[in-house]
């Protein structure tokens, strides 16, 4: 039996109960296989964030179902969903979300704190992840001492540290200049080549072109 798809949306949609009722995301189907590189584009307010929230288990669809690694996310408890999010999804945000008073390594280690990974393993894996994103020489640097590109690399290392099934990036280059952005995108390409499933949400078509497949969202509707 082949491995289940990483993401499987079956008529998943999200409607905010009114009044007035707002359909943030109309029911849609989407399957992302292991190792795929998907980009999701759409103008602001189109429903990209809602889509990201559903895929990232930060919000639940009000209709249809969402299977992550073959697990029906509606059928598990809230606590289990939280754990699922922590272990199987690595988030990369536009504004990095690094703790400014912790070193790069400590920031990466944070991804494993809630899995109760032993400290030794945590440290080792954090270093590994930072080396993988090319920051092996800045393990003990504070984020304030890092450039924008380096900060985003730390964030990517943090997303990778828990060895997730899915790397979910929300405008990963939104705060970076084009040259730095390109190097971050190169890094994502590399991770994809190593077998990582990557989903990037962006409004930048340049960024969107990097993926194998681009999905457009407009007015809450997913257009393949």
């Amino acid at each position, binding site marked *: 039996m082949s491995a289940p798809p990483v993401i499987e949306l079956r008529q998943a949609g999200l409607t905010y109960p009114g009044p007035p009722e707002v359909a943030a995301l109309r029911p849609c189907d989407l399957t992302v296989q292991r190792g795929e590189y998907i980009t999701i584009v759409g103008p602001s307010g189109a429903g990209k964030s809602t889509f990201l929230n559903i895929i990232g288990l930060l919000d639940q669809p009000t209709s249809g179902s969402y299977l992550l690694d073959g697990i029906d996310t509606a059928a598990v408890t809230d*606590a289990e969903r939280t*754990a699922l999010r922590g272990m199987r*999804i690595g*988030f990369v*945000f536009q504004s990095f*979300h690094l703790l400014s*008073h912790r070193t790069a390594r400590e920031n990466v280690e944070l991804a494993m704190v*809630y*899995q109760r990974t032993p400290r030794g393993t945590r440290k080792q894996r954090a270093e590994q992840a930072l080396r993988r994103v090319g920051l092996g020489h800045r393990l003990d640097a504070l984020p304030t001492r890092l450039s924008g590109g380096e900060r985003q690399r730390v964030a990517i290392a943090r997303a990778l540290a828990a060895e997730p099934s899915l790397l979910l990036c929300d405008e990963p280059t939104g705060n970076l200049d084009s040259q730095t952005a390109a190097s971050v995108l190169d890094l994502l390409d590399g991770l994809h080549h190593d077998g990582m499933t990557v989903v990037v949400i962006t409004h930048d078509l340049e960024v969107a072109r990097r993926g194998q497949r681009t999905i457009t969202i407009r007015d809450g509707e997913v257009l393949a």
Partner: protein
Amino acid sequence: MKLPRSRMSLRDLASEAVAGIMQRPARSALTAVGTVLGVGALIAVTGLTSTAASQIDARFSELTATEVTVDDIAPDVPGQAGPAFPSDADAQVQRLHGVTAAGVSWHVRLQPGQDIASGPPGAIYTTSDRQAQLTAASAGALRAAGPTLQQGRSYDEFHDQHREHVAVLGAATAARLGITDLRNQPAVFIGSSPFAVIGILADVQRRPDLLSSVIVPRTTAEELWGPPTDDRAKMLITTQLGAAAQIAAEAPVALRPDHPDYLRATPPPDPRSLRSGVENDLGQLFLLLAAVCLVIGAVGIANTTLVAVLERSGEIGLRRALGARARHITTQFLAESMALGLLGGLVGASLGTVTIVAVAAAKQWTPVLHPATIATAPLLGLATGLLAGAYPAWRASRIQPAEALRR
């Protein structure tokens, strides 16, 4: 399929909390000041009150804790006549273990026309002292009063047994009678009986009435004026420290084995009850003030933690995204405020203790503080932190990660 849940070790919780506090050390320190002041004031007040109370006690104790009086209540007992104290009362009581001095005394009522004067009745140059009292006191009673002599000596058992006509004068009485120097062997006349003045009292520890008295041996008084009448005899007993209650129980039996009920012994008040009373009176207001300090401290922590929660909503969102459950967020913020409270409690307890010691040193007191008070203080700080952090921590757990992460 059984999925694992997010978990966090206590050690991680502690280190995350400490890291949270250390993010803004200056602000954390200022936040803890309220608790420091509250707990410090509480410790200082409690300690100073108990310290002051024990000093008052010590002053009380020196005299009262070693004093027992025995009253003659024989005339109140139906069918009994005459004084209850036996003639060998002093000796009987002094035999008891723990007694340092004991003796019987009473005021002698003189017949009309009998005066206390510096010369015989009818003599030309005499000064009489109508304010002076005549006190019959056994040698033991005089000793128990703790006299300090200005001149001469006090009488002893010899004078007492042999009905000597000797007198010891209080300083005030001596001055009024014009007796200033014992070298010319002055006498006082009580009625027509002359008494050789052998000593003048400068001061007494007990029975200050003796300072305005003419004191004569008990036996002499009995021979001249009879046994005590309206003014009943009393026995004053001084004891070693801690023996008073025991002596009070024993004395009536020792004096009158046949009728201990003719006598009533009064022991000193229990110093323990005395102390608690003093503490209550002094401490309540200050304790209230300290509690107000503590409440202000709690409000400070609550306020700062709430601001921190709003400020750190991005961090909270991130932690949620990384697998933290709402309860992990709650416990982290609670742990931070509790750590601040604990820290404030520890520093406050130290400062409070230093204050007590400093004040005690300045006043030359012995600092008195129950160890349990110091032990509770950090816990009090911890509880303050817990209470103050409850609402902000709850608010933190309600922050929606999706929203927080978009900022």
